[in-house]
């Protein structure tokens, strides 16, 4: 169970679909504007609870306590074989011969 002082992530709905700006396209107008922010939990809570956190800038922010979202999982991505072909192509044009790329 997340404890007071834990670094957590919260979620909130900023605008429901009916509150959205008039100029947004149809697909966007059909979904809410959602927000996530991280901070220190101000009291013990469970995932799904409405909580308050103190953010990195020292602000108090309210939202629903979410699970996860604290780890950075983005990466350099799966192998894209075409990039090796690009490398071989330009190497051969400039340096000639077998690039072993």
């Amino acid at each position, binding site marked *: 169970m997340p404890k007071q002082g834990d670094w957590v992530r919260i979620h909130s709905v900023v605008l429901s679909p009916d509150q959205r*700006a008039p*100029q947004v396209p149809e697909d966007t107008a059909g*979904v809410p504007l*959602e927000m996530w922010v991280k901070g220190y939990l101000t009291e013990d809570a469970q995932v799904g609870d409405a909580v308050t956190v103190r*953010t990195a*800038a020292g*602000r108090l922010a309210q939202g629903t306590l979410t699970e996860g979202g604290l780890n950075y999982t983005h990466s350099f*991505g799966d*192998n894209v074989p075409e990039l090796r072909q690009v490398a071989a192509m*330009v190497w051969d044009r400039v340096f000639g011969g077998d690039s072993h790329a």
Partner: protein
Amino acid sequence: MRDNSYQAVMARRPDIMKAAVGMDYSRFESGGIAFDYEGMMQAPGLSLQEIEAIQHSYAIGNTPLIELKNITALARACAAPGKGARIFVKDEASNPSGSFKARRAAVSVEMARRMGYKGVVTATSGNYGAAVASCAAKAGLRCIVVQECFDSHGVGQPEIVEKARKCEAFGAEVLQLTVGPELFYVFLRLLEETGYFNASLYTPYAILGIETLGAEIARQFRTLEGRDPDLVIATNAGGGNLTGTARGLLHENCATPVAAASVSLHGLHMASDTQFNRKSFTTGHTGFGVPFSTWPDRSDVPRSAGRPLRYLHSYHTVTQGEVFFMTETLSRLEGMERGPAGNTSLAAAFSLARQMPSDQCIVVQETEYTGAGKHHNAQLAFARSRGIDIRFGDPRDEVPGQSIVLPRAPELIQAQEADLAQMRRSLIRNARQHFPGLVRPEDIPFLMDETRADEAFVRAQCEEEP
């Protein structure tokens, strides 16, 4: 209790902005189309030397100007005899936060510090957030960055996810939103709640900060070659990069023409939830570049200091596939692994160089850092996972949102020249729509400056039905 509904907050926008930028824009207004642009740029009272001193105190600037000899050789191998200009690049990735955006952030953050603000807020999904966070860390100010990051399924654009990580590495609070222009509403509420400074990309501070980049290019190129370059090319999105660079060149009495380059995202709607993750470039693209060039005052301040049509000589678009191709080429032929968005102007330069004589020189005015999420491999892998068709072929066949076509030969990298006259007409039309009624005599010279057009051109547009 304050009304925080969307409409109420948007209605308070002028007052919120006035408090958050420490500057009263009304004193530059004439009551119509014209306003005192140069007066606004001089209002902060900062000379180029003072801006350089600020940037040096944040370890920003004096980045290397590097000749890309192998890419030049490749261009010449794809050009007619006697053609193939030498290509140079300003390695802005070597700034502390990894891009030229550090230059504009430093001036904004330093002015916020001097004016006594306790923190800075910025609304950006791009390198600028990292730049503001980095400078705020050094200045001892709080920093909040508001990002458009996820689609409605919670899928994050990998490049923006990486920017969030970098901002957090510098101690910033990052608010991550789903797609939509109402991000601006969240931004206004934050400014009101915190009383922090709006580190906008479009204040005079931000644009003055880029003038040092243009000035450095002129000085460094003269030191290297004993003359001025024949063309400087800048990636264009909100217009500040191009404006500041051009003004910096002029400050050094360098009359080199300045060209703009953007990635073509033709057909994609920038506020569409479903199209958000079908593009592989989050900046430097036509979705920002064209609307901001033809109406700069759509920005988050009353009058944008970034006004690219005042300065640019030509505007070129390239495809996503062409930029990814050049990004890999920069890595493999020059040993410089840099982010794809910054290489937009490199791809255009590679095309333009092949039309120019081999004794001429082009300066590509920026690079940006790369890393997990924002690496070109990461972007291509993400696009493929979203069902985008990635293949070799003719880049002219690329359909943004559906395909990314890597050129099957470097000869096929062909920047397309945009119709600048059309963009000038569009700016005048937008100005007239924004200020309905008669065009006043003082608006004519203003619009001539705004569009780099002659009087006959401006008058012809002003006589048309609005």
